[in-house]
């Protein structure tokens, strides 16, 4: 495999991994905020 192709593939994998990690962090933050809401608000939301 050409070194350039290898580098490109590795960069693509790293970008995907970074995107996934960022989404996971954001989702964990949203879950925390949802859990911190008053119980009444959570019932209304569903």
């Amino acid at each position, binding site marked *: *495999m050409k070194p350039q192709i290898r580098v490109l*593939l590795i960069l693509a994998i790293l970008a*995907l991994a970074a*995107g996934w990690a960022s*989404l996971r962090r954001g*989702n964990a933050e*949203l*879950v925390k905020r*949802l859990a911190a809401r008053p119980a009444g608000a959570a019932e209304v*939301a569903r």
Partner: protein
Amino acid sequence: MKVKPNVEMWLYLAAMVALSHLVVVEGHARVDLERRLAVEPRELYRTLARSRSGLQILDVRPDLAAGYDESHVPGAIPMPSCDEARAPEAARGRILRSVPTVVVSARGDELGVHDCIDRFTSARSLAGGMQAWSEANLPEDSGEYAPPSARAGGGCL
């Protein structure tokens, strides 16, 4: 350890497919979480003030004259009771289902709000509705809906 180029290529591709799947799963989870979490008035204001975010704001208060015409979030599109047929003629073609949307009701906790949110690909409600927006002393517009002019420049809130 020496890996055959062909095998190496497949390993990279498998990793990319697996990671893409994880990104899609987390993305769906994000949309679902955001639906359940209302946006605070100041957070919405900051988003609107920071950039042309492409955010669509829908005012779903049922009484157009006593609600939207009296005061509304700047740039909001009236859609009384979340019924596009009841929106003013000028607003009808501007309501898009796939655009990130914030739904503004009177108090933010009305029963129909979440049914309305479910009709959009990515939507949240405004916490506390228009009442909370007014109480936070954030800028308001009044009057009937007028579609933005094609020549309009970037205004400020």
